[in-house]
């Protein structure tokens, strides 16, 4: 029962956050640029403009217009891009696979490196490799993502010419229209540098987090008890201790989604990666208001969905969690 109450509570909260985001998005659209100018240009007289305004409902009260905007948004209509002359959501969805695969690739890189590195540093605290990893991680935190990206482009793309420096390369279109770079050799080569860049700032953060949590877990009573019971060292380390470090990792991972999306914009700019972030910056430069709003609402939606999922996963893997709002 408590779980269901909690789920409903979180779902309501997600809806409220989306409502606020849409309200912000709408008030921006209301104040930024004149849709009429984009539609008809300069040559139309003032009287005709007023008639057109009435027809389009631009003279209605704010709340009436907002209700209409919300109604359209729920049906997936976030306006039409001034530049592309196509529904803004379609334009964004066409670019979504590129960004998604970039994020997926970099999540794969930093998880597969930070978990072993973090565990190693927690177990062998004094070894030279630990000292090296910990020093390197503070350097890693201090180098902005776009500088890592520029350095990689310069070194492997320009000087050594080992890897392609921009774009997605050859992509394969799935039957349902999803363009993937994972299935072609050229597409994979193009993914390497952007994915490393994007993971470069997450990697040191996660190594430090996993190390700290693992060290804390190794000192707890249940780990000492498991050891006293005579369980093998690997079992104590990787089953008993490590499982309990997953919880904070999931939470922090969920909190990082906003940062990760912001960093996709930086990475995509350096590599001219044809994803949503690159599209967003182009839209800003062209003052393509509907596209800017659609991006904000779409990103807000991803953010809310990911955070809600993380909350669910958190409650699932932690039997001790006290559900907020549940009566004990």
């Amino acid at each position, binding site marked *: 029962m408590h779980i269901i109450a909690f789920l409903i509570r979180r779902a309501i909260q997600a809806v409220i956050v989306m409502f606020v985001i849409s309200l912000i998005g709408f008030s921006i659209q209301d104040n930024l640029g004149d849709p009429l100018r984009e539609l008809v240009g300069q040559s139309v007289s003032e009287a005709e403009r007023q008639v057109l305004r009435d027809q389009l409902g631009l003279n209605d009260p704010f709340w009436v217009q907002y209700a209409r905007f919300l109604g359209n948004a729920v049906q997936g209509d976030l306006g039409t891009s001034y530049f592309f002359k196509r529904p803004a959501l379609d334009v964004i969805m066409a670019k979504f696979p590129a960004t998604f695969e970039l994020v997926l690739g970099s999540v794969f890189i930093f998880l597969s490196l930070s978990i072993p590195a973090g565990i190693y540093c927690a177990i062998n605290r004094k070894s030279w490799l630990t000292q090296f990893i910990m020093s390197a991680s503070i350097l890693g935190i201090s180098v902005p993502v776009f500088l890592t990206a520029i*350095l990689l482009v310069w070194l492997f793309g320009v000087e050594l010419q080992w890897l392609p420096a921009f774009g997605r390369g050859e992509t394969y279109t799935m039957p349902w229209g999803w363009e993937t770079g994972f299935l072609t050799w050229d597409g994979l080569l193009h993914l390497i540098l952007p994915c490393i860049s994007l993971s470069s700032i997450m990697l040191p953060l996660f190594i430090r987090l996993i190390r700290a949590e693992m060290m804390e877990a190794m000192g707890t009573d249940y780990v000492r008890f498991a050891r006293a019971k005579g369980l093998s060292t690997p079992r104590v380390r990787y089953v008993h201790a490590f499982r309990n470090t997953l919880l904070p990792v999931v939470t922090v991972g969920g909190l990082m989604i906003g940062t990760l999306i912001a960093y996709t914009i930086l990475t995509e700019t350096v590599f001219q990666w044809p994803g949503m972030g690159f599209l967003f910056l182009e839209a800003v430069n062209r003052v393509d208001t509907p596209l800017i709003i659609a991006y904000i609402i779409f990103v807000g939606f991803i953010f809310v969905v990911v955070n809600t999922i993380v909350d669910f996963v958190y409650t699932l893997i932690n039997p001790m969690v006290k559900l907020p709002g549940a009566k004990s």
Partner: protein
Amino acid sequence: MITWRALLKRFLSDPVAICAAVVLLALILMAVLAPVLAPQNPYDLMQLDIMDSEMPPSWQPGGDPRFLLGTDTQGRGVLSTIMYGTGISLLIGVGAVLLSGVLGITLGLIAGYKGGGIDAFLMRLADIQMSLSTLMIAIIALALFQAAFDANVYADYAIIMLIVIIGVAEWPKFARTVRSSVLGEKNKEYVDAARVIGLPARKVMWGHILPNTLTPVMVISTIQVAEAIMTEAALSFLGLGMPVDRPSLGSLIRSGFEFVFSGSTWITFYPALVLIALILALNLLGDWLRDVMNPKLRRGDD
């Protein structure tokens, strides 16, 4: 708490902290004294000559002794632009942290001291804002600002906008730190005593509790400045921050980036090096401060 003398002693026995402090001090001096030290004034169009553009550093073939680190595409000396640019980056970083400090301390004190609904509301807001991330909030706010005003207005207000947006977006970190210290302090006898003699809540909060919460604030401020400088650099790199004619380190990197492909790497790499040195020095000092101020952490490390 730790005395100033003990702090100094620990500082002098830590070579990493000394190095970081020396680098930071050198960069600050360089930025403050830029108008005196810089070989040319990159803002003075009279001193610029387009014939000087894209010169390599002076020790490379084709270099000019007037421009130690070479010139950019507008004929500005890279060394001079770095000196002025570091100042702008520092100004925005420190300004944003001061603003977020004032906001965060105020809201953190109120949340911790009053508790109840106002506390729940402020902390929930802080949660949401923190998970949205400063950079994402700043990107969206500045994108809208840039779309709403024309380029000249934007250029005039860029510094103020950057300080305000980064400062406001960063308040939750200070607020949470202060709030948790306040929760630890507010049930102690001295607070009760202050309350019993009839001091108003405002005086108890600001005069009695606040001074006891400042140690953690000091620790996070250093790292926050590094983060604010990094955020500003990222924004300027995206073209949403400082304009190219009043460049910060981030906009210098942006303006040189496309020339990396044609081999003019110095326009990008020297500002990048200074930016990394600045952030690294601040992060190392922040880490050192945290270890010194927090004896519990220090023990856990051994």
